[in-house]
């Protein structure tokens, strides 16, 4: 994907169109994977529907050429901004050999790419949060410890951020459910002590599988925990990509300048079941889900683009066609891609 808006200064119209196109692509990929799963192809789907605005909003606020991601599992839209392709996604979904995240070893939604600085995810909820802090520690460490002695020793693995005084930033996403884990507490506390260049983002969709927020915590906002660690916590409408973008930009800038972490809580909704193995009719009514459709970013942001005359029936149809082609190309590619071989199953235990 080309995203002209990634280059600053931002052209707001390009930005909005980029956002919409990426959200649409994420949604259509989601739908395609769900359909494939229902056809018995792909054992495991993890819908992102409802989380697209948050993903696209934050990813565009970062610098995909230098910053690091430790994303939430539903961040397909962010990954598209970051350079993960629809083919990558479908290969990962089908567990095929070209899957760049795991070569078909991990279940879907276990993102990762060393080249793109996306730290590999496991299934363990919140297990990646300390890794993200470690990546942020490395960014600060490199500047203070290695940069201070340039020329000495082997600096081959060193990274440079575009501004010489600026830090690369790590974005760490996780769900409301994951926020309950000790990993998050220990990680936030450490990041605060060292004022690390990291942004924590809790994508609060109100559920940890079936467990509703009120059985997960006695507070309304996860963001309120930030004060207890000594950094700002902000609540944002995660269904509004521009709101997320702005909020993320501030937090990223803060991190980049060495002022430390921010916790952003993006209020979102998950429109589909937790995964393809879940039956959400057991714990929420169809009315609840329909009610939440009013906030669907694909609907509201589309309306906004129509109002702003950035989109019309013609350009929308063209966009849908383009996106549809990308999705079909990805699906065809992945369906035809080779399986993990028995031989390769034994590789990469040690380096």
């Amino acid at each position, binding site marked *: 994907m080309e995203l002209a808006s990634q280059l600053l200064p931002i052209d707001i119209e390009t930005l909005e169109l980029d956002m919409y196109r990426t959200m649409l692509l994420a949604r259509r990929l989601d739908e395609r994977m769900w359909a494939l799963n229902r056809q018995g192809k792909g*054992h*495991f789907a993890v819908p992102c529907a409802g989380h697209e605005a948050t993903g696209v909003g934050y990813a565009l606020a970062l610098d995909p050429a230098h910053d690091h991601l430790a994303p939430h599992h539903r961040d397909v839209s962010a990954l598209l901004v970051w350079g993960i392709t629809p083919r990558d996604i479908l290969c990962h979904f089908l*567990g*095929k*050999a070209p899957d760049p995240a*795991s070569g*078909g*070893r*991990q*279940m879907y939604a*276990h993102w990762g790419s060393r080249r793109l600085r996306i730290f590999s995810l*496991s*299934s*363990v*909820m*919140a297990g990646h949060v300390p890794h993200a802090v470690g990546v942020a520690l490395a960014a600060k460490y490199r500047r203070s410890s290695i940069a201070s002695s340039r020329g000495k020793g082997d600096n081959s693995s060193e990274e440079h951020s575009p501004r010489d005084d600026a830090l690369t930033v790590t974005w760490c996403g996780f769900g409301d*459910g*994951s926020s*309950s*884990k*000790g*990993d998050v507490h220990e990680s936030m506390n450490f990041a605060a002590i060292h004022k690390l260049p990291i942004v924590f983002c809790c994508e609060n969709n109100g559920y*940890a*599988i*079936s*467990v509703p927020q009120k*059985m*997960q*915590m006695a507070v309304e906002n996860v963001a309120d925990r930030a004060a207890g660690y000594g950094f700002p916590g902000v609540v944002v409408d995660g269904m509004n990509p521009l709101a997320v973008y702005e909020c993320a930009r501030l937090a990223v800038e803060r991190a980049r300048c060495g002022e430390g972490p921010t916790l952003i809580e993006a209020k979102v909704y998950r429109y589909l079941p937790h995964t393809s*193995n*879940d039956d959400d009719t*057991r*714990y929420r009514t169809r009315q609840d889900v329909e009610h939440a459709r009013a906030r669907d970013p694909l609907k509201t942001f589309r309306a906004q683009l129509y109002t702003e005359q950035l989109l019309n029936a013609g350009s929308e149809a063209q966009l849908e066609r383009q996106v549809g082609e990308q999705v079909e190309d990805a699906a065809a590619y992945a369906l035809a891609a080779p*399986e*993990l*071989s*028995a031989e*390769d*199953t*034994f590789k990469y*235990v040690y380096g």
Partner: protein
Amino acid sequence: MIKTVIESIRDTLRQEMARDERIFILGEDVGVLGGVFRVTEGLYETFGPDRLIDAPISELAIIGIAIGAAGVGLRPIAEIEFADFIHPAFDQIVNQAAKLRYRTNGDWDCPLVIRTPYGGGIHGALYHSQSIEATFAHFPGLKIVAPATPYDAKGLLRAALADPDPVLYLEHKKTYRSIKGEVPEEDYIVPIGKAEVKRQGADLSIFAYGMMLHESLAAAELLAQDGISAEVIDLRSLLPIDWETIFESVRKTNRVCIVHEDTYTMGLGAEIGARIAEEAFMDLDAPIVRVTGPDLPGVPFNEIGEQTFLPNAQKIADAARRLAQF
């Protein structure tokens, strides 16, 4: 009555909870949803939110809180959604639950049951396929059971709930719906620490548990076609292990094949093999054989990878044939 493993567990939970109000279940999605595998389906409707507590994603707290409640006389059942996610609670299990009685000179105890689905074969990949029994079998103070049949699922669950010590009750998720069998309505207990000879044989002994018991029984059928008579023993109880039954079988067959899905090195087969080489050495006519998962960090998602990882009847029969011919 014929039941699946999952029905047997569910019905036993229901019966025991009705009988003993000290029992409650604490775990993620155990209440309203009835568990991600539906083990606790319908129990919330009967017993309500006090006794089926939907926990936040806090494995450490789930176990730690259950320890506290057990210490003061309740009978908590802590459910870990997948065995792979028990590791965040590792400290609470091995440093707290397993040591509470010993460290207090017998003053405190911890009658806690930890239930968790384990094992591969359902495309669960690295983090929804793990076998955890060997790791925990290292810790005196704990007990571990792994029923393979609906009958044992009930008998061992009742034994675990009656036990004064922490019991890790392992449910092989592949058996949940695929394994059916007779489950008597009346009360009975399968004692912790007793194995069962599932098939008599003369030429070699296969020791297995969980899903691998069924693969081993299928292997024994294949072997019978070749005229090899395999004795198959379901260990069921993994800590403590029923050494008596094992040694008796070794005395009879003089050949040992240990089967588990878990990885090879330091899998439970290590202890079984070493103990036989220590205490039944003179009864052995051939090297010990272990048929296990390979030493890989996890089961791959891709089906070819998954099948490459998992032992099955064919692989067991192949190894047993070589053993019989030794």
